[in-house]
């Protein structure tokens, strides 16, 4: 029998809360502290904790490395994509005001999308770096 039952049980209970906290930090960043960068790091920390307790292979099933490697450029693509869409709609690059019928909503959508891009890149990068370094010693 494994002796780290407490760690495993606690981690299983904590995981959804960590993920919800990451999402809270992400979407509540407009009102309180936080944003894409912090949320991405928290989400990556969840995967890293999982890897420390359940092992690297289990963590790789939880977050497939292929997907993470795709996330790294995807976030930057979303960010620049928002900028280019702004240009196509007649504004300046990253001028979100043109994204919706009035400029205030446009700004809100723009910030939301851009923060999502940051989240995706940061979470993907941090987890990928951890997987690579942790997987190298074996």
């Amino acid at each position: 029998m494994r002796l780290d039952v407490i760690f495993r049980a606690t981690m299983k209970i904590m995981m959804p809360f960590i993920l919800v906290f990451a999402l809270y930090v992400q979407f509540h960043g407009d009102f309180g502290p936080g944003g894409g960068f912090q949320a991405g790091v928290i989400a990556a920390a969840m995967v890293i904790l999982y890897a420390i307790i359940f092992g690297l292979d289990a963590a790789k099933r939880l977050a497939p490395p292929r997907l993470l490697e795709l996330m790294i450029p995807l976030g930057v693509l979303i960010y620049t994509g928002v900028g280019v869409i702004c240009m196509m709609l007649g504004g300046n690059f990253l001028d979100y005001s043109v994204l919706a019928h009035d400029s205030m909503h446009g700004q809100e959508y723009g910030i939301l999308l851009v923060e999502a891009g940051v989240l995706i890149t940061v979470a993907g990068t941090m987890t990928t770096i951890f997987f690579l370094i942790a997987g190298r010693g074996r």
Partner: protein
Amino acid sequence: MVLLTLMAIITIGIVRLRNLFAVVILGGIYSFLMASVMIVLDAVDVAMTEASVGAGISTVLMLGTLYLTKTEESDPGHSPLLPLFVAVVMAGVLVYATIDLPPFGLADNPVHTHVAPRYLDYSIEETNVPNVVTSVLASYRGYDTLGETAVIFTAGIAVLLLLKGRRKMKPGPKRKRIRR
């Protein structure tokens, strides 16, 4: 003040210790103290980043790297006098520069009179985002944040390139031998 004193003590500890494991852990503690300082300065966003990145992720990555290398710092093999001299001169220059800084927290400091009032006055009107840090970061200074995201992207790609193709060197010569 207490926090800064603790940080100074930890810095001395980091310099003195040869065991890299202890140094990494002390680095994490240093980051946590830095995050506390940021909270004292009312910069919660920065504190959050410092706590999660500085104390969390980078400590884990450092420990992962330590696992692959030695945990004892090797002897530098040269006299510490020249680096010490450079550090002292640099610190002297920096301390000399702080004399010219305006007093901390004064309302009419240059940093508070340039673009900051513009952001604070119009952020709600223009972006409808109550947290000015977010609106500055994502909207007013969107280019900078794009650059930061690109930096993270570059870091990820660089690590992927360096570490992904592991153990490709070992089978290489064998295959050649077989072909011969």
